[in-house]
């Protein structure tokens, strides 16, 4: 089991996700500096959360032009599982590995709190072990947006990974923290090996922290 965590200037959940992966899988991920142009054989690549390049210009935009990104894209196209969490999701969106856009929360404020999400797609390696799960969000720009065409496409191809819901799994307006279209919390690429999500599973990987239901997202890959 070999995993890799990409580190950009301004990443700040890189250590957190590495610790979670170590605890789940028993093996420590390699940290990959953004200037690297190659990544060794990998069972999982994580693009972690944080504020790469300070979120300046547009969240994820500058990181998506980093040298390492081409290699992430190559690996993704070759079928290696890739997870982008929070800022990592924003980066994957900017690389066009994932569809749509993440715009400013409808509240216009940063939101840090626990939310519930539930899997919409059940066949991908990231969603297969999931049911309704509690985990934190912490972002300014997590409001998922897609044009009508794009939305239709990701629906038709079963690419919606997770939706925000309440504790009982009900998807409704009240459980949507940031204004995301259709309560979308995470999406997959067409091939289902690339996942982007706004909630932080690595912050819910230990019961002492309030929830360990985030582990399930990694189980399919790390088991």
């Amino acid at each position, binding site marked *: 089991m070999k995993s890799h965590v990409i580190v950009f200037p301004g990443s700040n959940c890189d250590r957190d996700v590495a610790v979670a992966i170590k605890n789940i899988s028993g093996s420590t991920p390699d940290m990959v500096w953004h200037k690297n142009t190659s990544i060794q054989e990998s069972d999982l690549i994580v693009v972690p959360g944080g504020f790469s390049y300070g979120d300046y*210009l547009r969240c994820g935009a500058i990181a998506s*032009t980093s040298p390492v990104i081409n290699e992430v894209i190559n690996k993704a196209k070759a079928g290696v599982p890739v997870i982008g969490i929070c800022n990592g999701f924003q980066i994957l969106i900017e690389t066009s590995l994932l569809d749509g*856009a993440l715009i*400013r929360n409808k509240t*216009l404020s940063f939101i840090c709190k626990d939310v519930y999400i539930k899997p919409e797609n059940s066949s991908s390696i990231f969603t297969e072990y999931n049911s309704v799960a509690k985990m934190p969000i912490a972002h300014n720009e997590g*409001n998922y*947006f897609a044009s009508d065409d794009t939305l239709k496409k990701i629906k038709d191809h079963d690419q919606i990974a997770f939706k925000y819901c309440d504790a009982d799994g009900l998807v409704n307006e009240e459980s949507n923290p940031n204004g995301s279209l259709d309560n979308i919390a995470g999406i997959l690429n067409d091939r289902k090996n690339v996942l982007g999500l706004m909630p932080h599973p690595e912050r819910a990987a230990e019961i002492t922290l309030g929830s360990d239901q985030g582990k399930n997202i990694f189980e399919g890959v790390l088991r």
Partner: protein
Amino acid sequence: MLAKIHITLKKDVLDPQGKVIANSLSNLGFEGIQSVRQGKYIEIMLDGNDKNTATNKLNEMCEKLLANLVIEDYSVEID
């Protein structure tokens, strides 16, 4: 050369900021506001004085980095 770049949200893209600004303006008592859209304005100071080459270069900057073409349009002008 001073280049001025405008980056605006495409027509059908939601603009939460614009919406909130419109609301706050009405709350402040300003009337007759139909809509507000917020975009970016970037000024780039460039070497050289060939406007054509510069324009091409600036378009390329927008495509590669400055704008997200999924949701944004851009325009470039040089003083």
